[in-house]
C-alpha cells in the first residue's frame, strides 16, 4: 500500500487515543498551500508540454457534472436520510464538490503504479470545486432575495484553494518544464512527504469527527460509504466517454467520488447558516475520505481499466 496512507492511519490512531499530538494551524496552512500549488504547477507544466486539443467541450462536460451531482443527491438524502432542506442541500454541495487531498492520494496512487493521466485533470479539479456549492445554496434557500450572491461569488472564486490552483496552473504553464526546474526540489520532490504530513493531520481531524459521528448515527455512516461509488462511476463513465486515458478516467472518478471539506463547509456555513455543519463534515471527512483513500481509489482505478478494455 502507498506509504502515505499509513500517515493517515497514524493520525487517526493518535487522535482516537487522545494523544497530545497536534499540528499547528500555521503548519496545516503551509502544507495545504504546498499541495495546492504543486498540483497546479504540475498540471500547468503538463498542459504546456502537451497542449490539449478540444479541451473546451470536455470542460463543459465536467462543469455539467459538477452541477448535476448535487441535484441528484439532494432528493435522495432528503428521503433516505429524512434530512431537512438545509442539511440535505449542504450534504449535496459537499459531495458535489471535490477533495484536493483525495485527488492528491489518487495521483500518488497512480504514480506508484506508473500510470499516466491526461494533463487537463487539474483543470477539471478546479472546475468541479465550485458549481456544486452554488447549486447547494440555491437548493437550500431558493432564489431567496437576501442572498448576497456578489459577495458569495467573490468568496468562492477567490477562495485560497482556487487562487492557488489556478495560480499554480498559470505559473507552471508560463514557466514550462525548463523554467520549473529550479522549483522542483520544493514543489515536486517534496510532494509525497508533504502529502504524508497533510494526511497525518487529516487523520487527527477525522478522529475528532468520531464523536459527532455517534450523534448522527447510522445514516451518515452508510451514506459516507455508499454514496462515493455511484458518484465515482458517473465520473468514470463521463471521463471514458469524453476520451480520457485510463489514468485520467480513474482520476475523474476519484474527483466526483470525493467530497469537499474545505471550500464547501466554509461557503455553506455562511450561506446556509441553518444547516448543521458537523453533519456534512463528519460524512465527508470522517467517513468518505478514509473510504476513498483505502477502498475507493483502487476500486475506481479498476473501474477505469475495465471501461477502457
Amino acid at each position, binding site marked *: 500500500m502507498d506509504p502515505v496512507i499509513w500517515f493517515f492511519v497514524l493520525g487517526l490512531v493518535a487522535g482516537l487515543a487522545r494523544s497530545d499530538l*497536534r499540528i499547528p494551524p500555521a503548519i496545516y496552512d503551509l502544507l495545504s498551500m504546498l499541495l495546492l500549488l504543486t498540483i497546479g504547477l504540475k498540471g500547468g507544466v503538463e498542459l504546456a508540454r502537451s497542449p490539449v486539443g478540444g479541451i473546451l467541450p470536455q470542460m463543459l462536460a465536467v462543469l455539467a457534472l459538477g452541477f448535476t451531482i448535487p441535484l441528484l443527491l439532494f432528493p435522495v438524502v432528503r428521503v433516505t436520510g429524512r434530512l431537512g432542506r438545509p442539511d440535505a442541500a449542504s450534504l449535496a454541495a459537499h459531495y458535489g464538490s471535490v477533495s484536493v487531498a483525495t485527488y492528491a492520494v489518487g495521483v500518488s496512487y497512480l504514480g506508484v503504479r506508473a500510470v499516466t493521466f491526461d494533463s487537463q485533470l487539474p483543470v477539471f479539479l478546479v472546475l468541479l470545486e465550485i458549481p456544486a456549492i452554488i447549486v447547494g445554496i440555491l437548493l437550500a434557500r431558493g432564489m431567496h432575495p437576501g442572498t448576497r450572491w456578489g459577495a458569495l461569488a467573490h468568496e468562492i472564486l477567490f477562495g485560497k484553494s482556487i487562487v492557488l490552483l489556478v495560480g499554480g496552473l498559470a505559473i507552471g504553464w508560463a514557466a514550462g518544464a525548463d523554467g520549473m526546474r529550479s522549483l522542483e526540489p520544493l514543489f515536486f520532490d517534496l510532494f509525497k512527504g508533504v502529502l504524508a504530513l497533510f494526511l497525518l493531520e487529516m487523520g487527527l481531524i477525522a478522529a475528532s469527527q468520531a464523536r459527532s459521528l455517534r450523534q448522527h448515527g447510522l445514516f451518515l455512516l452508510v451514506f459516507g460509504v455508499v454514496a462515493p461509488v455511484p458518484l465515482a462511476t458517473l465520473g468514470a463513465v463521463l471521463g471514458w466517454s469524453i476520451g480520457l486515458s485510463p489514468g485520467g478516467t480513474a482520476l475523474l472518478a476519484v474527483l466526483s467520488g470525493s467530497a469537499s471539506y474545505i471550500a464547501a463547509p466554509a461557503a455553506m456555513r*455562511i450561506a446556509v447558516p441553518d444547516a448543521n455543519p458537523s453533519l456534512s463534515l463528519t460524512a465527508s471527512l470522517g467517513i468518505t475520505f478514509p473510504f476513498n483513500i483505502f477502498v475507493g481509489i483502487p476500486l475506481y482505478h479498476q473501474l477505469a481499466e475495465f471501461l477502457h478494455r
Partner: protein
Amino acid sequence: MAAEEKLKLVTIVTEAVLEAGITTTLKKLGATGYTITDARGSGSRGVRDAGWSSSGNVRIEVICNPEVAEKITTHMREHFYENYAMIIFIADVGVLRPGKF
C-alpha cells in the same frame, strides 16, 4: 484619572468563519474600531479547538458607548444567535481620550 470616561466593552466570542462579516457590520453599527484575538473554547455547541483553521473561535472586543453596544448586541442576537456558536458579554470600562470612541 480626570480624563477617564465610562464606556462599554462588548466582547463577542464566536466562530472564526464569521470574522470578516462581523467586522464589516461593527463599523456600520457605529463602532470606531475593534480588537481581535484567536481563541478556542467550549460551550453549548460543543468544543471548538482550533485544531484546524475553520474549527476555531475569534474573540472580538469593541469599546463603544451604551447606544452602540445596544445596537451591536441586538444585531448579533437577531442574526447569529440561532445558528452560530456565539456568546456576548458586556462590561463597564473607563477610557482615556474622551470622544475617541
